[in-house]
């Protein structure tokens, strides 16, 4: 059985982490497969959105410690891991994390990298790297503070203690919490809802959302307007507005 199961539901791609014996620990091989699958999906016109899921009991409980332990300073300096993360982050379509159980360390960082996080009521989010004498190394210190604020982010990263799905929802890390047995279904539903919209509009909106984390407000507003203007040149925009005015379902072509 493959460590990454790839399934298609219409325009929604589902990636299921499948290393149950290692609680879906994200080793380089698995990250490589995720990056590869997303890169293929990025150029596949049949795919609009992607859901990453880890199963009913565990999302991903961290990185592979054996792999990490072998690396001394020079080896860590030249680690391919940052590039793998960058490839995953470069995915240009909506990415949803459906999180049941543990999303710890790299697992939490993977969820933070996604655009939307949907959690089961058994979910736990945490960055316990500090307890190992290290620290988050794949965006944990940067992305967490941007969604939950300084105090909670600092507490989680400096104590290593995890929070529940409900706490994560209140703090803004998670959009919805559902019974664990329904997390995937509802995540796929949200993904399908997004997938009904114009693929180009989805990509442009995602890009604008991403940029909001990179630049100051005025520059962000200017870039938003540029992307908005770009969409004015698409057939899908006409189709979307026409369908609305004619009270029918739009038929988007991705052009």
């Amino acid at each position, binding site marked *: 059985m493959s460590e990454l199961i790839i399934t298609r539901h219409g325009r929604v791609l589902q990636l299921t982490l499948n290393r149950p014996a290692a609680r879906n620990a994200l080793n380089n091989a698995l990250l490589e497969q995720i990056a590869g699958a997303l890169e293929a999906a990025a150029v596949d016109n049949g795919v609009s959105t992607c859901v990453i899921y880890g199963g009913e009991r565990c999302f991903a409980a961290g990185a592979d410690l054996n792999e990490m332990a072998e690396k001394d300073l020079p080896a860590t300096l030249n680690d391919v891991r940052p590039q793998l993360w960058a490839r995953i982050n470069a995915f240009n379509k909506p990415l949803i994390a459906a999180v049941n159980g543990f999303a710890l360390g790299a697992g939490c960082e993977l969820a933070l990298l996604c655009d939307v996080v949907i959690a089961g009521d058994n979910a736990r989010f945490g960055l316990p790297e500090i307890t190992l004498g290290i620290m988050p190394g794949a965006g944990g210190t940067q992305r967490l503070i941007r969604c939950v604020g300084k105090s909670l982010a600092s507490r989680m990263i400096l104590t290593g203690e995890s929070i529940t799905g409900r706490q994560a929802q209140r703090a803004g890390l998670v959009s919805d919490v*559902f*019974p664990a047995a329904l997390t995937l279904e509802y995540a796929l539903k949200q993904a399908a809802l997004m997938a009904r919209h114009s693929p180009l509009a989805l990509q442009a909106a995602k890009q604008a959302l991403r940029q909001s984390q990179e630049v100051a407000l005025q520059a962000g507003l200017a870039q938003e307007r540029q992307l908005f203007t770009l969409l004015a040149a698409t057939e899908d925009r006409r189709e979307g507005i026409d369908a609305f005015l004619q009270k029918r379902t739009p038929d988007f072509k991705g052009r």
Partner: protein
Amino acid sequence: MEFILCQVENGVMTLTLNRPERLNSFNDVMHQQLADCLKQAERDETIRCLLITGAGRGFCAGQDLNDRNVDPNGPAPDLGMSVETFYNPLVRRLAALPKPVICAVNGVAAGAGATLALGCDMVIAARSATFVMAFSRLGLVPDCGGTWFLPRVAGRARAMGLALLGEKLSAEQAQAWGMIWQVVEDERLSATAQQLAQHFASQPTFGLGLIKQAINAAETNTLDAQLDLERDYQRLAGRSDDYREGVSAFLGKRAPNFTGK
């Protein structure tokens, strides 16, 4: 020493608090033994109902104060430690257990013993049983979920009176106030509680668990959130074996045979 007697029979786990000479008051070892039993109740799918009662003349007198004899010249004890280590996990686990928890209050329930009993899903008390929120008399706060459960089972005014005065409440009064399910004659308590437990052990346990979770969640949810939760739980319940069995038994005019799944 067995401070908790644990018996599993026909899908019912009966836990008897067993320090009768100390009115079954809690000490650390007793907490640990209780926690071990609960672990089994959580993991064993064949256990479909939990029944908690006390040995001897009392149900439970709460924390054993012999363990709390404070040296007047020493540093203040950290009572929060024992709450966090023992009482809070206990209350959380009983509330989260996806199967009915019955409490048969056979005698005095005082302090954490009283609040523990009131937090169970179904409370049956012997006519001679009493509930005493003894905390205030020692300068303490009702723990073991007391301040949360009391206003919910008794209403705010009665909760305040009970908690601030710390006076004894009879089982009959508790029933009259809607705080407990039933009062029975002392000699009937054990049989009545067992009968109810046996009934639950033959019922659609998965569905009962969802009902319990839903009612617990309702205490803090808005109507909106609760309606969403009902949709989700009904979706889960509709996929259970017992739902199919229930419908087919109803249509076939026969007695259902529920497996709890």
